[in-house]
């Protein structure tokens, strides 16, 4: 798309969208957001990139094939679920680690649930880009 305005705008918007998507991902457990929404927003960053600058450039910037990213996301999500096996719990039993937990404060939570959500993010992100890139390249 040979629009200078759009390309200029994309330069900022794409970054914004990516940051926003990660924000949505990380806060999802406590406020609206999460892996789906994060992934959707994140993918729009590259969709916009592809629209403004062409798929070739978007692919180059992304470096990884989006479908591999999506599949890897699926694997990460599953591994997050399988992690519970190490503790003898059933599949998808959340395993939590509270960094710096005290009597009163829970500390910074790290959990398989978050890892799962990251997997979701990657799947949505990668899948949508797979679709959109492939369609764009058809035209």
């Amino acid at each position: 798309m040979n629009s200078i305005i759009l390309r200029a705008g994309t330069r900022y918007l794409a970054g914004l969208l990516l940051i926003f998507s990660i924000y949505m991902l990380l806060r999802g457990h406590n406020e609206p957001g999460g892996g789906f929404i994060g992934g959707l927003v994140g993918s729009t960053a590259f969709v916009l990139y592809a629209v403004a600058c062409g798929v070739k450039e978007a692919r180059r910037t992304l470096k990884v094939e989006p479908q591999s990213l999506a599949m890897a996301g699926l694997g990460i999500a599953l591994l997050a679920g399988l992690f519970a096996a190490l503790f003898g719990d059933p599949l998808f039993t959340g395993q939590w680690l509270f960094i710096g937990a005290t009597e009163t404060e829970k500390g910074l939570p790290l959990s398989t649930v978050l890892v799962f959500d990251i997997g979701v993010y990657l799947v949505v992100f990668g899948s949508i880009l797979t679709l959109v890139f492939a369609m764009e390249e058809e035209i």
Partner: protein
Amino acid sequence: MNSLLVNLMFAAAWAALFGAFTTLTLVSGFILGFGVLWLLQPLTGGSSTYFLRVWYWLKLIAMFHYELVVSSLSVLWDIFTPNHRARPAIIDMPLDVKTDAGILLVTNLISLTPGTLSLDVSEDRTTLKVHAMFAEDPEAVCRALKEGMEKWVIDAVEGT
């Protein structure tokens, strides 16, 4: 942009002091940091353009809002009155801004203020096609845009 970075670091440090990265701490930290930087300007050797730039930005924002409100009313008028008062024209406005950010800002601001709408920038980035609603005199509109929006933007973004 070095100074901006330092300023942000100040803000972060300030917030860390409070033990909480809230909007309040960060914003107050930023303002505080700005003040400190300005005070220490000779010491740090930072260029004075940083402070000037901030001033231009503030001016840009203020002028933009003023324009926004004033020209909105004229569009409203046209919407609510039975006759169309508009005298539209498409104006080719020569562009002086060069950077992407500058072009984006100029076109966006032109679009956001009622009465004018950026349609397209030519491939060689030299002309901006603007649709003006009230262009009895296209030349005048063009001049107003160049001396208003574009100049403010050049000041704020591309500096001197």
